[in-house]
């Protein structure tokens, strides 16, 4: 199969996901496709598999060749049995035209047995573990006897054992003369299994090379991009102020350096009546276990007033869980959370807010906004009590409050219209305006610039810097390394549910972060050997 000059623009959000990409897939080869989040890997492969009908360019493949894509997070009808899910549309029939359940189950079992996948055909889909669901989905694709099999992050939910089973299956297909494409973040797996590697960044193919000719370090820097030099000097300059080098920043360090502070667009720091040496937010040995899986392990974290603490990593490595813990949306299985020194009475957003937390969630559509409510109703969420007069909602007061927020944040919207009429950028501004209207001492931002264009995300970043200058403690969860690097004073890298390392000052180097995110130690990180902690021992075989 050959892809020629493929370009794909998503009309809904006007994102150019894939730009003029050409790629050839050969039979009898395992081809790895790697790149950061949003690099366009999944979109490109959906086009290859014929799942996205509208694109520019050409997909050439021999007639009769079957191409199947196993998507990330496979979906099943939960109440149906595994075989019912997978044989949909290709059900074997009995003589009488009825569905031949036994034949289907036999065929499935034979296939599962061949690769030793531990999945039963008659299990109900809702009982499958995440790894079993992944294996079942792969088997579902194999039932179609594909000439080209595309796997999108197939090992994300898998243990080492299951990963080995998947790899065995992939080798088997390759030896059978079929083409296999593996989309992944994990460089270790790429090095182990693939024959050729294509690296994508920002919708383009950076390079295609033979696995034998490369090493993880080179791949990591290709993925993350050499263009990080582009504005590194600017950043260094603007962050001279923030590079305190210690975890606790005192107001003195801010004031000592008025010259660089003046370079900032934000106003000079005017700390409130907070003790800068007292953490405003703490995690103490926090773990989160669900269904026997350790999702977050033994996390410790301290946030001081005026500090921007960046948490980064690949999203599947626990970023969404730490977001839930930090915002009170989930209760830790062990350990404790303290906000301004106080233990929450219960782990709910309600209590966390009362203790002084504001929170801009990743999921703006479901958690951050009520799409069918009016813009005004979305804005007054946190101030609703203030507009109550004898139980009645004072609409005049709430309207002028919303109008003021609209003006302050430059939101283009009609306040009386439903929230879903807004663009993504304006929606995020509504959420920001609401959360920041509380003057909370701690603000958690999760992926604040996802889906925003350059200007909108710039505004969000300015807002974060302004808050920090005012002495607000900020936790910035982001899988975007550029964003983290340009904003955070300290950077915590998550890998497999743990904090792999905390970086501050001059350690905040792109390659080091990239390596830690991917679970490999790149050469760059050797520059700071004293920072090696016990977590690096978790990575055998590197």
């Amino acid at each position, binding site marked *: 199969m050959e892809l020629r000059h493929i370009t794909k623009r998503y009309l809904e959000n006007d994102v150019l996901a894939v730009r003029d990409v050409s790629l050839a897939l050969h039979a009898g080869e395992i081809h790895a496709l790697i790149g950061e989040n949003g690099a366009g890997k999944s979109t490109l492969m959906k086009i290859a598999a014929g799942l996205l009908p509208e694109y520019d360019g050409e997909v050439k493949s021999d007639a009769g060749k079957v191409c199947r894509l196993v998507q990330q997070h496979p979906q099943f009808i939960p*109440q149906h049995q595994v075989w019912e899910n997978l044989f949909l549309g290709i059900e074997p029939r009995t003589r009488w035209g009825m569905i031949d359940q036994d034949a289907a189950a036999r065929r499935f079992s034979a296939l599962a047995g061949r690769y030793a996948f531990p999945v039963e055909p008659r299990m*109900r889909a809702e009982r499958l573990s995440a790894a079993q669901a992944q294996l079942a989905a792969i088997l579902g694709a194999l039932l179609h006897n594909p000439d080209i099999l595309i796997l999108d992050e197939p090992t994300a939910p898998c243990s080492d054992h299951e990963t080995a089973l998947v790899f065995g299956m992939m080798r088997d297909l390759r030896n059978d003369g079929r083409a296999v494409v593996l989309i992944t973040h994990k460089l270790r797996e790429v090095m182990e299994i693939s024959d050729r590697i294509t690296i994508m960044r920002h919708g383009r193919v950076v390079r295609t090379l033979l696995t034998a000719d490369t090493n993880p370090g080179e791949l990591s820097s290709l993925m993350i991009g050499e263009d990080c030099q582009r504005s590194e000097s600017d950043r260094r300059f603007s962050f001279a102020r923030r590079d305190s080098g210690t975890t606790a920043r005192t107001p003195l360090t801010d004031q000592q350096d008025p010259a660089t502070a003046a370079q900032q667009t934000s106003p000079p720091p005017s700390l409130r009546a907070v003790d800068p040496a007292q953490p405003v937010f703490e995690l103490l040995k926090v773990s989160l276990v669900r269904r026997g899986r350790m999702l977050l392990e033994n996390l410790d974290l301290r946030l001081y007033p005026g500090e921007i603490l960046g948490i980064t990593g690949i999203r599947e490595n626990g970023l969404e869980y730490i977001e839930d813990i930090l*915002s009170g*949306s989930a209760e830790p299985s062990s350990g404790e959370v303290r906000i301004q020194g106080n233990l929450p009475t219960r782990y*709910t*957003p*309600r209590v966390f*807010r*009362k203790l002084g937390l504001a*929170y801009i*969630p990743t999921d703006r559509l*479901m*958690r*951050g*906004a*009520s*799409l*069918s*409510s009016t813009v005004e*109703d979305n804005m*007054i*969420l*946190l101030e*609703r*009590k203030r*507009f*109550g007069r004898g*139980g*009645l*909602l004072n*609409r005049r007061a709430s309207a002028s409050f919303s109008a003021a927020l609209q003006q302050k944040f430059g939101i283009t919207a009609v306040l009386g219209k*439903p929230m*879903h009429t807004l663009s993504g950028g304006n929606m995020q501004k509504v959420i920001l305006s609401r959360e920041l209207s509380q003057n909370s001492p701690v603000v958690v931002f999760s992926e604040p610039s996802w889906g925003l264009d350059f200007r909108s995300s710039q505004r969000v970043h300015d807002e974060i810097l302004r808050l920090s200058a005012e002495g607000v403690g900020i936790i910035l969860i982001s899988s975007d390394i550029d964003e983290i690097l340009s904003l955070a004073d300290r950077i915590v890298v998550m890998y497999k549910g743990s904090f792999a390392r905390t970086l501050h000052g001059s350690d905040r180097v792109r390659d080091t972060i990239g390596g830690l995110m991917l679970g490999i130690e790149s050469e760059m990180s050797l520059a700071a050997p004293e920072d090696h902690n016990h977590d690096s021992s978790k990575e055998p075989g590197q």
Partner: protein
Amino acid sequence: MSQSQPDSRMQVAVATIGAALLLTVLLLISVSSTPYAAVRAFFIGPFSNRFYLGNMLNVFSMLSITGLGMAVAFRAGVFNLGGEGQVYVSALTATVAGIALASLPALLGLPIALLVGVFTGAVIAGLSGLFRHLWDTDELITSFLIASASIPIVDYLIVGPLNDQASNLLTTERVPLAFRLPRLLAPSQLNPTLIIALLLLAAAYVALFRTVRGYEWRLSGLNRQFARYGGIHTGAYIVFPMLVSGALHGLAGGLFVYGTHYATLVGFTAGLGWNGIAVALIAKRHPLGVVPAAAAFAYLESGARIAMLHTDFTFELGTIIRAVIFLFVTASVLPKLGISTRVGRSIRLLFRGGSA
């Protein structure tokens, strides 16, 4: 789709009723031997005299209350599927209370009797809300099961221990004369329930759309995750709406006794609760929408009843017409509410017993 503008929703409602009417006419014409008389009785009948008009208005008031009871629950995103049973049980407890308190002056005894009904309905429905909050059981199923289980118990009590020996009917004793609500348009059944219903609708509108609690209530229904994120006590907005919904059904039960029948008869609720669901759905869960929705429903029901009296229109035909309307309504509304999957899942659970 996201295009749920008021005018297009209006169109759907009108089209739904229109389609149901058209089908009714077709049925009448094809089945009846005197189609002209049947159609005339069906459509003109309800307005032909005081008796029919008053009865239609009475049906309207009852349906308004049960419809509102459903609408307030839907607004909070909870589902009370036990309205029918709640009306029935509450009617009985209100009847028993009234008979027991016969010695009290009416101004004291009647409110207490009605409050007993309100309380009964609130407790029955509130239990389902509480179970959902505590154990995450589906309130849609528990409310249905609790109410369904209580209906035969009430049946037994009426024909058994509480039966009126003096009557040949399957009924309780009649409530004290002094407690009975006056008739407004004699000889029809119309009574002050109509005024109470209209006041309740207005009050519900203000409470839902003009108060802080109402804001939290609606937000919990629109997007529970968002409401929780905003610090709203979403657990309370599961239990409380169920309580209110049950209370309204309880009040409907009490008023049905003291305004219309003066006793609890076996099966006398005849779909008040179920039709309340249809009314709430046609009304798009809006208290003010309940007025036209209940009016349309009451009109069709009265028309069927009158056609039955005057022509060869049969009881079954009336049932079919009601079923047709219900089908149209649910088909057009449920997918929009995003609850069809939930209802489907629940129905399947009910009938398959969750077998593997």
